[in-house]
């Protein structure tokens, strides 16, 4: 491999249709290298070597995309806020996301959810009372802390989004790679399976399952997940893997035909070695991009189901259920409509921006 790439450039090697057989693979490779070297200054990623330059290139291109960076930063912050910030805030504020404060300031004189920056008093079990702060006011006439519920809602959204994504990516890469690389009957089998899954009315089926069969899983939390999260992850995963599988199948399929894989074959590399050192590295890009984008999609789906009352179990806070309650207070507390909506749109926007940015970074030819 290495000696091929450093092969002195020659017009003959430049010509793929040269008669001398050994030169073909070599020539093809050399040609490709020269082109990428000369035009558009693309580093020799195609050869599957020079990985450092590869990542540097991606980072360089990503850095130029300010929006994508902003998205990335937002996401990092969101994770911190959701999993570290929420419990911390709950500790600092002194109450949980599911505690109602109706008779102690959570509702205003008109029995309406208290507005932002309201102080409520909490009865402690030892008989004393303490004053606490509702930063965004109450979530509903149940007078729970909207702010905390938003934070914990972020947890649910991310758990479902990431969980389901991991699920579909794993299945997708596995089946996609097998189908794409080995082809033959395994490919036929998997492709057919994909087509069958695609024939289902996805959301209808999700809702049907979530409301009927899935309900039995609602109490499974593994101690840290929100109630109902597991159900959603499973359902989304089992019905969603086909899409990723389809993508990775075609990626691997095209990789398999690439000159550098042929070349590797010619120098007698084993399948496993080819997969390890030539296929997988090239899947990293698509995986990252697809993952980022599908997290956004799943977050939206979760919100939708919770909105229909088929998502996470009450009283677990979810942006969807917050959104479902909000219309009750349209006229007096329009802000309740705004918080979860904005949280949702910003989050999905962030993931989409980052995803697009990554796609362009990984595949400059696609960038416009």
């Amino acid at each position, binding site marked *: 491999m290495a000696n091929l790439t450093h092969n002195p450039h020659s017009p003959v090697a430049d010509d793929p249709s040269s008669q001398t057989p050994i030169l073909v693979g070599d020539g093809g490779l050399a040609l490709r290298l020269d082109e990428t070297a000369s035009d558009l200054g693309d580093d020799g990623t195609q050869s599957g070597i020079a990985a450092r330059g590869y990542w540097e290139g991606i980072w360089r291109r990503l850095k130029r995309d300010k929006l994508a960076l902003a998205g990335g930063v937002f996401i990092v912050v969101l994770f911190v806020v959701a999993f570290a910030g929420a419990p911390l805030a709950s500790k600092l504020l002194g109450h949980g996301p599911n505690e109602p404060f*109706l008779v102690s300031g959570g509702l205003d004189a008109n029995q309406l959810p208290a507005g932002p920056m309201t102080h409520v008093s909490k009865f402690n079990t030892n008989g004393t009372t303490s004053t606490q702060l509702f930063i965004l006011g109450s979530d509903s006439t149940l007078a729970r802390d909207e702010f905390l519920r938003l934070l914990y809602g972020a947890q649910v959204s991310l758990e479902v989004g990431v969980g389901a994504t991991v699920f579909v990516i794993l299945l997708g890469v596995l089946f996609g790679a097998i189908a794409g690389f080995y082809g033959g009957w395994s490919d036929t089998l998997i492709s057919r399976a994909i087509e069958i899954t695609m024939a289902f009315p996805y959301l209808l089926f999700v809702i049907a399952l979530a409301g009927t069969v899935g309900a039995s899983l609602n109490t499974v939390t593994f101690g840290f997940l929100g109630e109902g999260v597991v159900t959603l992850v499973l359902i989304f995963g089992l019905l969603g893997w086909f899409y990723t599988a389809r993508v990775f199948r075609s990626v691997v399929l095209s990789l398999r035909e690439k000159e550098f894989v042929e070349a590797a074959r010619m120098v007698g590399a084993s399948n496993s070695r080819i997969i390890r050192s030539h296929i997988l590295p090239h899947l990293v890009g698509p995986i990252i991009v697809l993952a980022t984008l599908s997290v956004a999609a799943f977050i939206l789906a979760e919100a939708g189901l919770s909105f229909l009352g088929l998502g996470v179990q009450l009283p677990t806070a979810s942006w969807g259920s917050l959104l479902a309650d909000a219309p009750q207070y349209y006229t007096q507390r329009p802000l309740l409509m705004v918080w979860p909506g904005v949280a949702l749109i910003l989050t999905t926007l962030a993931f989409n921006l980052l995803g697009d940015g990554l796609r362009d970074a990984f595949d400059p030819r696609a960038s416009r």
Partner: protein
Amino acid sequence: MGVKRTALLALAAIGVLSLGVTSASASATRHGARGGTIVVEMSSDVDYIDPQLSYYGETWKLEEATACKLMNWPDKEGAAGGVPTPEVANGLPIISKDGKTYTFTIKPGFKFSNGQAVTAASFANAINRLANPKMQSQGIPFLDIVEGAQAVIDGKASSASGVKVMGNKLQVTLTKAAPDFLARLTMPFFAGIDTTLASQIDANGINNYASCGPYYFAARTPNRSITLKRNPNYKGGRAANADVIQVNIGNDTNVELQNTLSGATDYPSGGIPPTEWKGLVAQYGLNKKDGRVQVRPLMDIRYLALNHARPLFKDNPNLAKAVNWTVDRQAFSAQGGYLYGKRTGQILPPGMLGFQQQNIYPIRITPGTIQVANKYAKGNLRNGQAVLWAANKGVAPLQAQLIQYNLKQIGINAQIQLLPRATQFTEAGNPKTANYDVTIEHWGADYADPYDFLNILLDGKQVLNPQHNNYAYFNVAKYNQQMLQASLLVGNARGTAYAGLDSELMKNNPPWAPLVDSNDRTFLSGRVACVTINTAAQAGPLLNVLCRK
């Protein structure tokens, strides 16, 4: 002579029906513009429109407009509306000396929407159809006093021996004198049915049938709409102002409000966002004549039924007490918004015969109350897991979460299951499907008598019926006996007996956690008039009277 006496006695028992409503005077007499369509909205579908099955307040609003009954509530407000008055019966029945045999004469001229004449048989058929075991009606408990009804219920006979048709006369024999019998007859269960419907026996209900009231059910599309049209053959005196009463189903309460404000809907029967009431009262005033906001006290209670058929509450009175101490009635009521109702810790509502203010349980929680609750709960939690049922529309989910939180405070982890309201109480009333430990229930008096609360809701004899109303599955021989006795008493004795039962149960063996005695709150569009509310008959404006301005 004797006849008169017993008749008066019967009425005396009913006299207490007069409610403390003196607000709007009856406007049933004033007929506004006849014609046009009245649009009603319900947030979820009704249970049945079949008269022998429907047992949902929302449906009864429609049944009242479509049924013709031997005895009925006059389309009047307040006290005047609270007296069962002969409708199809030609005057009060003749009652035998022993008070067990009632003989009604059928007034001529009543016709079904399909042209059939209303006869004595129409009512006999209703009773027999109601009793038919294949119908699985929740109305069966009201037949306990009709002679021979039980045989039909048990499938041993096809018609109740106590119900005889003699020409234009209907004779009903009771097993024992029942002071509230005439009041029972005002329930849609006993409305006249034509021969076609009489022949159709289906536990899942008939969706198109001829009726003999001012209106009839012209169409029903489940989960979508119900249409009432004026009964062309109706000659009875009741109003039928609108040509069509259109019921649209499925909008959330906030949309119902939007539609009512914009005039697309006239009566949001499914309710509006609770937080809106205060503003609406301020804007439109309260209980003005034909005003847009009408509020009336109801004999109506919202409570937690604690399922005594399941391990958690079976023979576990202390936990039941703990629940009564821990539930935050103030908070629960707050979910309902302004003028939702009056917090209560007892079974019987104010205005009901036998109501005595009992202060057994707190109507406001304090750290103290929580400590008492935990004292009772201690050692009685069993596995501490509970299933909590609630309706899936309006404020019910919020209330469910509140109860869930209250239960958590005494160490019960409740998992919430939300169902459509109709499904909720139908499944809850069916021993096979009642898989809850606690369900948030809501009971409106079918007619103003304590029998309709204690016996109907807590008599243990019915808990094995395929359909019943004892959602607490409360079955204690001693109390069953006491309820039976009380139901036979008359006048003050009756009241005292039921009052005693009320406090006795709540003190020693609470079947429920009573929460709120709720009001009837009505908001109407600006284009309707002829607003008449008869809380004895139903909640909300009488739809057959309601008219377009």
